[in-house]
């Protein structure tokens, strides 16, 4: 635990001593604030809820989370600092978790800075704050899942651009897998079970459920197990590839 904390602390401090953290937060807030107003008709739909706000999170995360994740391991490999990190008395698991938690926490900070939206709906109307809290929880969990995918892919390459593009693609497939576009492709030939499996992998389906205020265990388990799975692969990849 101690090692995870120390590694996470170093990472977080690392975000804020470079312009990266500030640029990310500004752009994140600008986009996450603009979408509901310009596209989501936040004011004109006459509802005191943040549904139109949360609806855009998957699409925003699709680009921004891989941007945070791409440097996690690719940069360590590129600069050779991985040789320092992996010869310190820490296990690979601790290193992977420390880095992941730092990045997740950082995204959490950015997400929590959207609190003026919450204040706004409370001033304008009388929203169900439980639903809003569920929305934030779902959004944060989904960001974690995107991040775990991105972290794992970052461990596969020295090149951050490759890490970014591949991570966006994989995240896109996970996001879209519940939509007709993807499902139609499978329905033509695949057995019903496979179609249902693909559909069940959809971030959108699970996120929408939580966002509506229906916190079901299986949606939470879905994101948690997805994070666990990708981080496990991440650890295996680091152990196999760190020396090459």
């Amino acid at each position, binding site marked *: 635990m101690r090692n995870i904390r120390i590694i996470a602390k170093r990472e977080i401090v*690392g975000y804020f001593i470079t312009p990266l953290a500030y640029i990310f937060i500004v752009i994140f807030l600008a986009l996450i604030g603009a979408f509901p107003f310009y596209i989501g008709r936040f004011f004109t739909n006459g509802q005191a809820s943040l549904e139109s706000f949360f609806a855009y999170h998957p699409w925003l995360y699709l680009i921004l989370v891989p941007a945070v994740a791409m440097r996690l391991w690719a940069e360590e490999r590129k*600069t050779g600092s991985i040789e*320092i990190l992996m*010869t*310190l008395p*820490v*296990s690979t698991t601790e290193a992977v978790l420390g880095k992941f938690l730092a990045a997740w926490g950082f995204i959490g900070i950015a997400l929590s800075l959207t609190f003026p939206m919450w204040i706004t709906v409370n001033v304008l109307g009388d929203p169900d704050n439980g639903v809003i809290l569920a929305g934030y929880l779902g959004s944060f969990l989904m960001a974690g899942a995107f991040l775990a995918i991105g972290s794992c892919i970052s461990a596969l390459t020295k090149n951050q651009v490759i890490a970014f593009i591949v991570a966006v693609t994989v995240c896109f497939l996970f996001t879209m897998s519940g939509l007709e576009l993807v499902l139609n492709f499978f329905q033509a030939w695949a057995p019903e079970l496979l179609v249902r499996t693909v559909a069940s992998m959809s971030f959108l389906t699970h996120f929408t459920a939580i966002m509506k205020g229906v916190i079901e265990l299986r949606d939470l388990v879905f994101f948690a197990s997805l994070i666990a799975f990708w981080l496990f692969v991440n650890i295996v990849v680091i152990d196999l590839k760190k020396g090459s």
Partner: protein
Amino acid sequence: MMTEKIALKGLTKRFGPLLAVDDISMSIASGEVLGFLGPNGAGKSTTMRMLAGFIEPTSGTAEICGFDVTRHPVEVKRRIGYLPEGAPAYGDMTAESYLGFIAEVRGFDGLEKRRRIDDVVDKVNLGEVLRQPIETLSKGFKRRVGLAQAMIHDPEILIMDEPTDGLDPNQKHQVRDLIREMSADKAIIISTHILEEVEAVCSRAVIIANGRLLVDGTPEDLLARSPDHNAVVLTVDAAQEDAVRKALKGLEAVKGIKKTKAENDTVQLRIRPRKSSLIAVKVADVIRARKIPVRGMFVDRGGLDEVFRKITVDDKPGGEGDA
């Protein structure tokens, strides 16, 4: 007291078809400074990386203070200070916060952490750049940050891949003094291309090429392999050259005489002994008996460069890759 700290047991590493390290076995005791020599791509860094627990051996193993590198990697890493090749670091951190991070991972907090940092900073002279980002530092300072990082927990074992690379002569001298100072109660492995460094700091020298251990001995043992070891270098007037050659003809211990320099009416003659025997006294006696005027005379120790070249070039096996 000589206690075994590092033991390599048939250590082998393969990268695909390339055999990088080929069945190396040896042991290193506390108090020893082992110099790892070899051409580029010989397997020095790969061996050190396996000892430091960064990569795993394909077969064979190594034990650090009794702990197996593959089975107890964290215990091993606790006891080692490691400076990787090129001294990588987190470039956007300042030297101070970087060392703070290393100290924390090594288990130091609060005052003890502060004391450890001050101590190593003082040892490697980092004070003036402590608050600068590491990536803005000169090569010499970066290397010293790497050294500080490796020494911060006062490890029983130090493994340093080219510790003086990129340092100026004064800094090199400083680092060598530091290594000598620390060597009393540690087992130290350094790799280097600079052969004079081996003579200066190492109590033992190992040459590897193509992943195989070729020579293991003291630097003096290595020097003794030089054909010039204990050769007598004589400077006389050019007119006396024949007289010298004639005088030495009778000496059984002399293997041959070679003219190495001729300028301003003087010549320099290198008199090589048979089997590195000490011939200086005999040569001096003969020369004095013949009353040949001598302008200069000294005993050559031979050069490690020459020995190194002889060993590593002669040993090229056919067909092996030498990446």
